[in-house]
């Protein structure tokens, strides 16, 4: 359970602190006040990455050198200092050499109102989804992913050089294949575990007469080595690695048809939510407790029936932090703590405690 959060030089906030309820915490306010940034800060504190960007540099407040996120999860004190020059992790005030133990403390799912891009957007959105989940599910996922990325970028750097550097490219081919095969195996196993949970969530939230399907699509043929060799000619022409896990995708289907084209907007939203619910459910079943459930302004797009069914399908007992622009639906949600956020000119963003009074 996340008890509190303190941030420094984070997006629009110079300094901001808030406490959370063990059950539901609600943050209400207009647009552009930083509600999403607060949830983003929770993700960065617990998972050391942003759900919105690949690099943390844009998260630092304009004009500041680095950001700090700090908070208590259960009885552990987590702190992360980040600047482009330096990153420092501390657990109970002890600096951590690597992120292994730090990342075991808390897990999180981020529901965003842009989640529909999981269905409509490019494969990058779906890889980001798989990677965010994979890094929380498998202990080695994050290291393998980062190493694969490094091997890929190194190999591509050699592919772009003139004159051609076939020996150097070949030197990076071996680690690329080794790491790529490991990544493919982990992602495949992840999707197999996710599928039944996503289908169950889709059926519970949406209509039962449509069939939701998801399938892992490997960015090379089953034999990565052979696929690389087969693409060698085109690779030399285009000067970049054309096959591999960086081209993986998660195929989403509605009754056998590609969901991006055939599903209605409502069905696409339900699918996206079902994916996020299955993310939460999978972590719950693996680790025996619900991850933090961060819901960023997702209710506006849902009718009352779907909204209530979404709530019913989320892991019970999971701590929920919800942001919204409107209080209209709040009587349905028993928030233990309700905050209003507003811009108070010189004092910056301030919180009003609406309840408990």
């Amino acid at each position, binding site marked *: 359970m996340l008890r509190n959060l303190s941030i420094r030089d984070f997006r629009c906030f110079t300094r901001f602190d808030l406490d959370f309820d063990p059950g539901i915490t609600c943050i209400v306010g207009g647009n552009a006040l930083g509600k999403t940034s607060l949830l983003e800060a929770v993700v960065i504190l617990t998972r050391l990455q942003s759900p919105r960007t690949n690099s943390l540099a844009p998260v630092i407040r304009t004009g500041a050198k680095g950001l700090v996120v700090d908070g208590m999860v259960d009885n552990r004190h987590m702190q992360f200092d980040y600047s482009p020059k330096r990153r420092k992790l501390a657990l109970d005030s002890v600096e951590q050499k690597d992120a*292994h133990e730090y990342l075991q403390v808390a897990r999180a799912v981020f529901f965003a109102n842009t989640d529909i891009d999981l269905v409509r957007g490019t494969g990058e959105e779906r890889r980001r989804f798989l990677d965010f989940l994979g890094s929380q599910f498998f202990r*080695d996922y994050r290291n393998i992913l980062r190493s694969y990325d490094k091997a890929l970028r190194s190999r591509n750097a050699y592919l772009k*050089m003139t004159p051609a550097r076939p020996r150097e490219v070949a030197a*990076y081919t071996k680690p690329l294949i080794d790491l790529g095969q490991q990544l493919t195996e982990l992602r495949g196993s992840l999707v197999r575990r996710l599928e039944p949970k996503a289908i169950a969530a889709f059926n519970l939230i949406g209509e039962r007469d449509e069939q939701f399907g998801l399938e892992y699509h490997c960015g090379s043929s089953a034999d990565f080595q052979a696929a690389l060799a087969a693409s060698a000619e085109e690779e030399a022409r285009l000067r970049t690695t054309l096959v591999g896990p960086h081209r993986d995708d998660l195929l989403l289907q509605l009754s056998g048809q590609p969901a991006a084209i055939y599903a209605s907007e409502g069905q696409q939203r339900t699918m996206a939510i079902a994916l996020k619910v299955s993310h939460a459910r999978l972590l719950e079943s693996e680790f025996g407790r619900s991850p933090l459930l961060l819901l960023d302004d997702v209710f506006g797009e849902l009718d009352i029936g779907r909204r209530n069914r979404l709530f019913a399908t989320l892991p019970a007992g999971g701590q929920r932090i919800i942001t919204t622009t409107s209080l209209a639906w709040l009587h349905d949600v028993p928030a233990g703590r309700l905050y209003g956020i507003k811009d108070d000119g010189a004092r910056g963003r301030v919180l009003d405690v609406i309840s408990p009074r």
Partner: protein
Amino acid sequence: MRKVEYPPPLQELIRQLHRMPGIGPRSAERIALWMIQAPNSRPGEISDAISRCTKTVLSCRDCGFFAEGELCTICNDPSRDRSVLCVVEQPTDILPLERTGAFRGIYHALGGKLSPLNHVGPEDLRFDSLLQRIKQAAPQELILALGADVEGEATASYLSQLLAGMPLRITRLAQGLPAGLSLESADDLTISRAFTGRTEVGRS
């Protein structure tokens, strides 16, 4: 009113110390003050030691390790086994290997690893002198003691291409369970590599 600072020579000393790795502005100031104020600081000896080192400590012509003179103590030692050549990334990697006493052969430090993202290519590494040494000394075995990260793997893979067809055995250090660690506390990757690199303990 004029802002009061340290006299320029002291400022210069602080600036020079601050250039050193791991020395921040506060540490630089402390060290500088210690040098000029502490009764036992003997700054002349420090300065002599620095200039002596930069003049006399060079890279060994053969292996790249630190040497006083043309060759290092390892390459000068006639009792070393010249049929086994161990390739490392940095000259500083030789010391931990030497401390174990497990290896009696000779070394070759490449001076880094293949890393296009840090602009280090084969031309920046001591591959040519390695090939020359192999041709001249004709060792029977080449041991690759490179890092297990992506760049170390790529460098090992580059070397094995480079040396393909040469009459010598190429091996690499085993990867596996750390000494004194239980299976339970090892990560999956380490365990899977330990499986791949398992050794026979006997046959029944």
